[in-house]
């Protein structure tokens, strides 16, 4: 079962939330941001090359042109591989754990898996980000020594920053699975 809905991010960019239910205790929630636009890429490249031509006209050194090409290529590769996140997904497997994946534009995926024993709860928090107050979803990790305490807060969907309506959908899906572990009989 899969369904896809469109929402807006905190900065007004359109994002899409895709929900898939693999089984009764396994759900995948993916938030996809907009892809790299051709016009912004060409605008950036043209700006850099115009500046390089201007410098070349001033100092008559052709090294400036090759340096500009080099910088553009390297900058693009670095941007695609380390900065631009295309899709952030959350895979909740009841009784195993929660897996957070970020997929970059170059295809690289960075994954973190948090075991269910370490997860205390999944909540929506408020934060002051620059000049705005935004909502964000986060996983609270259990403190091994103190059963009531929280050892760490892991924020989710940091690059796409969905708004509250999208976060509520994700929150409801997660809580349905997390509740199962409370109702299931605990092994002694």
């Amino acid at each position, binding site marked *: 079962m899969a369904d896809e809905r469109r929402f807006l991010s905190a900065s007004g960019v359109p994002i899409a939330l895709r929900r898939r239910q*693999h*089984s*009764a*205790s*396994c759900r*995948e929630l993916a938030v996809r941001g907009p892809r790299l636009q051709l016009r912004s890429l060409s605008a950036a490249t043209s700006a850099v090359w115009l500046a390089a031509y201007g410098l070349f006209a001033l100092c008559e050194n052709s090294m400036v042109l090759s340096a500009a090409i080099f910088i553009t290529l390297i900058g693009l590769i670095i941007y695609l591989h380390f900065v631009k996140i295309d899709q952030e997904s959350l*895979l909740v*497997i*009841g*009784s*195993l754990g929660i*897996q957070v*994946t970020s997929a970059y534009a170059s295809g690289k995926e960075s*994954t*973190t*898996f948090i*075991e269910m*024993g*370490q997860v205390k709860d999944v909540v929506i928090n408020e934060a002051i980000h620059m000049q705005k107050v935004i909502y964000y979803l986060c996983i609270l990790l259990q403190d*091994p*020594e103190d059963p009531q305490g929280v050892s760490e807060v892991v924020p989710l969907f940091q690059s796409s920053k969905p708004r509250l309506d999208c976060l509520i959908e994700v929150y409801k899906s997660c809580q349905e699975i997390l509740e199962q572990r409370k109702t*299931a*009989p605990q*092994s002694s």
Partner: protein
Amino acid sequence: MVLKVFFPSCCSSADSGILIGRWISEQNSAVILAVVHFPFIPVQVKQYLGEVQRGTKVSVSVLGSWSNSKQEKEESLSEFLEDLGTIFCHEPWIQISKEGDSKFWSCSILQKHSKNPQEEEIILVYYDQRKVMLSHLHPPLDTAGQRAEDASKLSAIFDTVARSQVLFMTDRYDEGPIKLTHWQSDGVEASIIVELLKQASVPACMLLTFLLSLLSGICRSRVLKFWPLSFLWSKLSTCEQLGHRLQHLQVISSNKKAQNQNQLMRKANIFVSLLIDVALGILLMSWLYRKNRIGHLADTLIPVADHVAEELQDLLQWLMGAPAGLKMNRALDQVLGRFFLYHIHLWISYIHLLSPFIEMILWYVGLSACLGLTVALCILSDIIALLTFHIYCFYVYGARLYCLKIYGLSSLWRLFRGKKWNVLRQRVDSCSYDLDQLFIGTLLFTILLFLLPTTALYYLVFTLLRLLVVIVQGLIHLLVDLIDSLPLYSLILRLCRSYRLAAGVKFRVLEQQDGKPLRLLMQINPLSYGGVVQTYRLPTYSCYPRDSWASLCKKLFLGELIYPWKHKGDKQN
């Protein structure tokens, strides 16, 4: 409750048989290690499992049955498999069956003594047995305070597979009563080169230990402990670096086998680091000795020293005039300037005395670059220190003079205001002075105050020069430290065999079919490069910086001597 079955992907195409592995009841999960094929005698299977349990301390038992039928499902086979459940009574009894080439298997559980007869959901997790066996989990938190029950679920699974290596030693060419399928059942892997190296390493280690004990005996002998020599050894960074490398060699050549993963990685890192160091050193040496570059270096050394001395003389002439438009006290200026100029003259004569021997000394010293690039860099740093020794001397003279002046000024300032420093109480107390004390004190205060700019200027100039030399030496030492502490073996391992260093796992959801159990693929999530460097960094003998910026500025202002680069053996003052 959800039942998790960890199934090795190598057994997906195995023939029908029974599943053996470990049942972890706290997590309601079964880790399948191998499949035992028909025909077998149950008694022999139990005996074999008992042997394996004793050898590996892992509670291996028969967990269920596996049926891989190429054609339609046979009814008699399924009854036979259920009967097996009564022979190897295990609670719960897992039955997995695969039809033809279908990807979707059916899984069922038989529970005879279950309290709650509800349907349990089953999750089938495939894992790569070889990678999980060889991998080493790096927990982000320190597990020192954790109890055994709190240990993460994943580490229990990794542990189980890693400790069951004995089980994977029998392959299908062995003539035994039990026929197993696991990752090595097609033939046990072994490498001749590795075996030869292992055999050769024992006598090599013994020889190395003997040589090292001789060397350390010589180093510790009384002859080298006399005062001038021991002072020299402690000041030269080359000796420190050589001592550090000697320690490393001792670690590698010790006969004890590494107890755990950390020690093994450390030994391997030290070995690779030494190898690369010596290789780079030999490369440097071959470059230096080709085309007589050493001769050219020696030829340029004296002119460079002369040039530095000339620049210093020009600097002093400038200071003796009106530097930057400031007006100096002529008499003090001349005294200080002439004193330093004579010092430089002495130093130049010294260098010229040594000049015929420089080439030979450099030639022999350059040979020691074969001990490693780090040693060559340390020698460079020591040569710089020796060549700029006069700058160091000037700095010390200037600093001491300035320091005396500052202390004199502060004490006389207190006298000016009618106060005194109480040494007993370590505080400033008021004191009534006699008239002649006050008169002389004020006079001296005025003299010192008006001579302050001259001394301060000399101090400033020589401190800046000294700081320049210190920064250059510091950069060289940073480079040496980097080469010393970089864990090259771990980085190469992370690059080539990334599954060996695991930060965790990642799951991928495979194709699903309604009514069949959830299928997941468990892969190893490798540690990041930054994490590798942080975990396996080799300890070095120096730490920077000794002083914070605030205390450094304070020391500079007061004229105390500064030694910004601290070594671990130095006492804290």
